[in-house]
């Protein structure tokens, strides 16, 4: 597994998440809450930036990717805790009445949209960190 393949894997996750998020909001018409928007801010650019770093391969893209993936992972983690009820929701001006703690989708009893987001950000961080280790060898 080369560094290229690891970055490619991270891009694949980011691109899938981007299209998935667009599918949920534009096709299934589920309105994104404010925390979802922050996760989008960090996820969407990775689908473009990581792809640019693949052709030609530029290992600096790992750094740029991590700069997006780590804050995104933090927001996703926060969101997950909010949905789980660990953090009380008190800071939302969700004008359209979409509280971030609302669960729009639940698959197989435990997979919610924030869970998918957290899983995606975790995968991207892990893949990019591995690429970083591999390319500095």
């Amino acid at each position: 597994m080369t560094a290229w393949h690891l970055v490619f894997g991270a891009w694949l996750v980011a691109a899938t998440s981007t299209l998935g998020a667009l599918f949920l909001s534009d096709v299934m018409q589920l309105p994104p809450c404010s925390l979802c928007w922050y996760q989008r801010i960090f996820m969407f650019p990775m689908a473009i930036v990581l792809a640019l770093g693949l052709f030609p391969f530029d290992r600096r893209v790992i750094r740029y990717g991590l700069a997006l993936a780590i804050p995104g992972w933090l927001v996703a983690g926060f969101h997950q805790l909010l949905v789980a009820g660990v953090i009380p929701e008190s800071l939302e001006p969700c004008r359209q009445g979409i509280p971030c703690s609302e669960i729009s989708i639940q698959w197989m009893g435990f997979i919610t949209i924030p869970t998918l987001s957290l899983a995606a950000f975790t995968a991207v961080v892990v893949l990019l960190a591995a690429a970083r280790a591999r390319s500095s060898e």
Partner: protein
Amino acid sequence: MKKPAKTQPKKKSGTNQNTLFIGAIAVLLLAFIGGKYFYSSSQTGATETDPALMSTLVRPHAMTLGPSTAPVVIVEFFDPACETCAAFYPLVKELMAASPDKIKLVLRYAPFHRGSDAVVAAIEAARRQGKYWQALEALLKSQHGWAPNHTAQMDLAWPFLEGLGLDFAQMRKDMASPEIAQIIAQDLADVRALGVTKTPEYFVNGKPLPSFGYEQLKALVDEALAKAR
């Protein structure tokens, strides 16, 4: 994603990478477009309310105005703390006055603002004393006085209900009753089932507004009136 043929000598990893990348993009886009097509064909007629949801539009507990046999039924989901709802209330009344006995209004609650559920409970409590419309109108009129910064505060609303002849002690008792809590919970569940995200939301004979606005509401009502004729 297809793997490049094994027989090829490993001359350039670049070609493999290109194939992998382009293949992945193609798969993702196909999945997205296919999914979109599949999803939208399974959701026929977004402009009509799913017949299975029709029963969630009108519940027996909902307050109504106008004859029960009226051919046109407007279901309104509203939040007493919502400014647009207050602004639309007289407009809907006008629509009804323009076609007497032809329109029935069904009021449902969508208390999205913080604190709104207490105000809804107060309206329902006033209803038990036969003062539903008086309380509703007094609250809508005085909205800015008790809903500062989009937060409904029932404590501030009481003075505006004075002079209506309401028994406040009884109201406070009723507001805490499980029956009224049940009404609010039911309305909120229906709000979710029907996908109502903004207030006011109108359904005219089961049809949601194509986009929000008085003109659109009037057009739907006129269309329903024409059909009833």
